[in-house]
């Protein structure tokens, strides 16, 4: 039997398909202005990629901040539960999840059945989210995807003291003016974001093994900075960004 999960985030829309308990494929698109259109498009493109027709999909669960606008889904669930289910599906050992997406970052605690027992989220503040990194990449006139690799060359990470994204951006701009090395600035940005996220993890007393999910997990510099902060190894799968959609598909199969 075939099940689908659709995760509409603030920046990207993700879809995943599961057949007979196996992950078949996933797909990612930019969300854009219209969340419903994005959800239809990401779903249809994924279906045609794997040659499955809509009628074959038994149940669909939507998640992400745009979850309630996906009118063709059978049910909407939050990212928290879906990331829990996704991580557990990919690796049943996982007890802690750090999910960093476009506008939210969260720490999630799982029990050994993959059920979420606790979570904490950033509040009304973009510090420590994908948006924070995006703003910084723009200030540095760099492609977001390059931040991770470049930061690995840093010798002494710059010290970014402002928590506020807007103030941190002006700090970065003045560092650029002082000709601070780019890699050091980026490493500093990662440390600043990691410090924010680590507080969320501490709030729920995160447990190992820890997996990082969400788009920001693709940034190796962020993962390293978090590993330093949390003093533990962090697992990242190839489908970290689609983890929420995978979880939604997993949960769809249990409905």
């Amino acid at each position, binding site marked *: 039997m075939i099940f689908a999960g659709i995760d509409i985030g603030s920046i990207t829309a993700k879809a995943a398909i599961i057949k007979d308990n196996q992950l078949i494929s996933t797909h990612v698109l930019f969300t854009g202005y219209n969340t419903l259109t994005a959800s239809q498009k990401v779903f249809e493109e994924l279906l045609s990629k794997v040659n499955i027709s809509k009628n074959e999909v038994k149940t669909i669960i939507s998640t992400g901040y745009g979850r309630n606008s996906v009118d063709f889904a059978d049910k909407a669930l939050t990212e928290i539960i879906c990331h829990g289910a996704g991580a557990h599906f990919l690796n049943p050992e996982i007890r802690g999840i750090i999910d960093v997406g476009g506008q939210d970052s969260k720490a999630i605690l799982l029990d050994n059945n993959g059920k979420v027992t606790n979570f904490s989220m950033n509040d*009304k503040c973009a510090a420590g989210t994908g948006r924070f990194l995006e703003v910084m990449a723009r200030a540095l006139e760099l492609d977001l995807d390059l931040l991770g690799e470049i930061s690995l060359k840093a010798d002494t990470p710059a010290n970014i003291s402002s928590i506020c994204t807007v103030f941190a951006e002006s700090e970065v701009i003045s560092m650029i003016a002082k000709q601070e090395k780019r890699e050091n600035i980026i490493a500093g940005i990662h440390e600043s974001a990691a410090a924010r996220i680590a507080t969320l993890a501490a709030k729920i007393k995160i447990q190992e093994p820890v997996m990082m999910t969400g788009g920001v997990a693709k940034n190796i510099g962020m993962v390293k900075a978090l590993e330093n902060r949390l003093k533990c190894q962090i697992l990242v799968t190839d489908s970290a960004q689609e983890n929420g959609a995978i979880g939604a598909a997993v949960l769809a199969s249990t409905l």
Partner: protein
Amino acid sequence: MNDKLVEKEKQKITSAKKMRDIMTTYYIDAMSAKENNKLVAWITSGGPVEPLIAMDIIPVYPENHGAMIGSSKMGEDLCMKAEDMGYSNDLCSYARTDISCAIVKGGPIGGLPEPDMLICCNNICGTVLKWYEIQARFFNVPLFIFDTPVCHTEFSPEIAKYVRTQIDEYIAFLEKVTKKSFDHDKMAEVGKISYQGQLLWQKVLNTTANRPSPMTAFDAFFFLALIVTLRGTMIAVDFYKELLLEMKERIKNGISIVPNEKYRLLWDNLPIWYQLKWLSSKFSDHDACLVADTYTSAWCSSLKYIDENDFLNSIAEGYTRIYLNIGVDQMADQVIEMIKFYNIDGFVMHSNRSCKPYSFGQLDIKRIVESKANIPVLMIEADMTDPRAFSQSQVETRIDAFMEIINQGK
């Protein structure tokens, strides 16, 4: 009417209308105090109001007014006016709205009637001290400060003596301002009535221990107004008697407030006044009923220290040991007691940007509750009257996830 509407009508609490009428009359009386040669005292919500009633002074509560401003979604504008005057946006939004309202006469009732005196009791917070000092200067009226030290662990003999002395000073202050002598017999009578009112309020709140619950904390937030503003009068006693009867009747007939009550939640901190409707339907969509809260019970939680036959002596302890004036461990104990009594499945904490004494120990209380009561706890950040501190989609995700966790655990 179709079936759904009939069902909805049945679910409504009929006493609500009466309560609205009582509050209207109360504010009309207060507004026309001058014409009726009556004095008006502004008093903090947790202040000892009974001596005022005994002296026939009309008590007016800026905090109740703040709640009205919040519910009518006029908080943002009034807060900003106070900020224009130079007040920090970190200041409690009740203080901000009250200070600006005194000048612009805004809000749903065009401002409060001007005070002849101010009574400030700091058993709720330290903010009220400066707030009332500012208003005393603005209106040029006498201010009485009733100082209740925080009782972290016990009500020591030193505290007892210190607070008791102030009751005499309070009475002397009232005699001086009114130029009348204090009637102790009347006071004894008012004391008994106040005690009765609080007892009835407690009984009303207790009815929600029934499954399904006949009312929610959202209703309690509304019905609370009388025990705050008309405590010590027969109006409150009579009303709560009726309300209690209605609740018992609902229980008897199996009328629940949330149609399919599945989960029972406890609320902490002040309500988010401008979002009551949205929050209430959000929870009810999840078949969850907010059956109780730590806020409305604050007006009866120290009843055990009060002796109705020795009212003036015993209120020293009663007014000092209220929920916001005790240690975090004791607060957590009360929360855990409530969790047991009301059979609670989850605890929702409003981290309130305005109210520091209420929000300061919340993370500790959260940890204690999680470990001792073993139920999920949710923390949402907002402010009771200033909507700029509230973000709906973020709160929505948290509530949805919280309900999913409770549901998973069932």
